[in-house]
């Protein structure tokens, strides 16, 4: 700050040498936003975001991604309520193939599956055998007789919550770290960047795995462990953007008005770099879903009977040659989730990049 003040003082255009007036801190007081003050909303950022929105919705892939994400989120919230079954309720109706009202008359999703044995293959319908004529499991049931429809959407919900929560916490940590490091520069930056270099050299997944071996697996601990994985990338982006912006006039203007460092960092600069940060968040969420699925597969995921997409896939994996329908729904939902986040992130990046012109 001291450096900034001398810089600001040196560019004062008036010749003050003749008068013995010493500038005091009270000369420039930052005005609080109140009822009598108005923000200039006609210019500046508004048109930029309008442009971004236009470019984003011009991008077919991004729109498809957004639509998919909305549908998936809708089902993740309401899907489990659409059936009379709960995600942990076990029944005798185990390993039933998918059966859907109406469509079953067309010969597909009628609850029959082809069993391959040593003597050859035959068609088998668990609903007919078990005399369950009025029962419909849309995605079938697993080996404990739990409804896969309910479990898939409950799992999608859990995976989404974990990924979004972990990424948002990452964003806050990484962003603050990068912004502070970039803004203060000098020794602070050097020490903070050395720390990042060392932290970056540690393979995160190894640490996450070890951490989960120690802590008891559960949603909170998984979020905590995932938190450690993505903040470095976020901090790099925030720092790079900060280095670009901190020499700009509006920052000097704010300094002249005696704004504190934290005001400048979080109120003046942050709103200007929010675009790249959101893009990075969109890229980070699929990574978090990936990592969570990996942990489930290794056996360090959400404890049973709760489920996530990863744990559903690793459960279905055990019987995927005999009952492939059990593993297909969670895989498709997961792939669609990753796909839509990636498409949205791509669209955002292109929309926010001023270099890429429309066309």
């Amino acid at each position, binding site marked *: 700050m001291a450096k900034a003040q001398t810089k600001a003082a040196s560019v004062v255009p008036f010749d003050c040498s003749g008068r013995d007036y010493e500038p005091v801190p009270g000369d420039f007081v930052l005005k609080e936003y109140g009822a009598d003050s108005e923000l200039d909303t006609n210019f500046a950022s508004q048109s930029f975001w309008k442009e971004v929105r236009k470019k984003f919705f011009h991008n077919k*892939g991004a729109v498809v991604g957004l639509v998919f994400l909305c549908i998936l989120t809708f089902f993740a919230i309401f899907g489990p309520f659409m059936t009379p079954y709960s995600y942990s309720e076990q029944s005798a109706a185990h390993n039933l193939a998918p059966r859907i009202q109406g469509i079953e008359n067309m010969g597909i999703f009628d609850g029959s599956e082809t069993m391959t044995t040593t003597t050859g293959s035959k068609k088998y319908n668990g609903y007919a055998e078990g005399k369950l004529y009025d029962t419909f499991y849309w995605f079938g049931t697993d080996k404990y007789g739990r409804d896969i429809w309910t479990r898939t959407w409950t799992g999608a919900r859990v995976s989404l919550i974990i990924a979004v929560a972990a990424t948002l916490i990452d964003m806050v940590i990484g962003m603050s770290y990068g912004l502070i490091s970039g803004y203060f520069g000098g020794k602070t930056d050097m020490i903070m960047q*050395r720390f990042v*270099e*060392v932290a*970056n*050299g*540690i*393979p995160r*997944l*190894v*640490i996450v*795995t*070890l*951490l989960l*071996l*120690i802590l008891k697996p559960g949603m909170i601990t998984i979020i905590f462990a995932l938190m450690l994985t993505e903040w470095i990338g976020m901090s790099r982006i925030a720092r790079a953007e900060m280095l670009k912006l901190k020499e700009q006039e509006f920052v000097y203007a704010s300094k002249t008005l005696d704004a504190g460092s934290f005001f400048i960092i979080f109120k003046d600069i942050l709103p200007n770099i929010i675009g790249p940060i959101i893009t990075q968040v969109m890229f980070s969420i*699929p990574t978090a879903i*990936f990592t969570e*699925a*990996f942990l489930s*597969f*290794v*056996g*360090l995921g959400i404890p049973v009977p709760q489920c996530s997409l990863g744990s559903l*896939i690793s459960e279905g*994996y055990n019987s*995927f*040659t005999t009952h*492939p329908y059990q*593993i297909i729904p969670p*895989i498709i939902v*997961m*792939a669609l989730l*990753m*796909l839509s986040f*990636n*498409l949205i992130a*791509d669209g955002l990046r292109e929309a926010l990049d001023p270099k890429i012109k429309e066309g």
Partner: protein
Amino acid sequence: MKKYILKRVLISLFTLLVILFVLFVLMQLMPGSPFNDEKLNDSQRAQLYAKYGLDKPVVIQFLTYVKNMLTGDFGVSYNISKNTPISELIATRLPISMEIGFFAVFLGAIVGLILGVIAAIWHNTIIDNICTIISVIGVSVPSYVFALFLSYQFGFKAKIFPMLFDSKMIMKSSVLPSIALSMFTMASIARFTRSEMIEVMDSDYMLLAESKGLSGRALVFRHALRNACIPIITVLAPLIVDLMTGSLVVEKIFAIPGIGSLLVNAIQSNDYNVVISLSFIYSAMYIFIMLFVDILYGIIDPRIRLSKEGS
């Protein structure tokens, strides 16, 4: 340049020490003990602790630990195969993992480059869209899903390749795991190559090359691809690391006797010594690859070297 390399090496060594420290602390925090056998009484347990040096002060334990790790003495396995030196367990498994990993990187890099270049040359056409769709699917689907799909289609149904790893035909049984592993690398490289190539093709020196009368292959390969390759090297390092983690699950699915499946087994049977040793090996490989790529990058691109030295 020497100063830059020296700095990078020092940072890497320091990182390695930090990792050793973290691993050591984590090992102290592991729940339970490897000697949870109910048949053991207290004196027998104390004897075992003494045998493995677990009764000494923590500082001494750490120092001996660092010395042992750096000399390749990882101790013995507690659970997976009792009293076998871990270095022995790893020695037989590491080559298999390395081989599959190498295949996967090679395959992913080559196919990814080709896809990316094709997409960039026919930018904004149907061909570009197809390549983009392939690469988006590649980054969106976890490698173990590919592994399951491939082992179901080509192993279980078509029976072209063995479904599980067979030590009698290593080459043939490495095909499916390598393909499954390479998908993510391939897709990432394709995406990156495409955007780099498009940027390079728009540049002034490409316009110059074109106005000189160059066309076709010479233009794309000699001028565009060479310049686009420089940034691609940087993404290769994190991709190789992603590959390592992907290999854990893929090795498990194909029952490959590599270090990945060893780590998964060790995690599931609480064999800490093995987990910690393998974590160390993974970390050391990771640090080495990062160091190698950073130095390589510095040699190729003088701008990076100079700017890093300046700061």
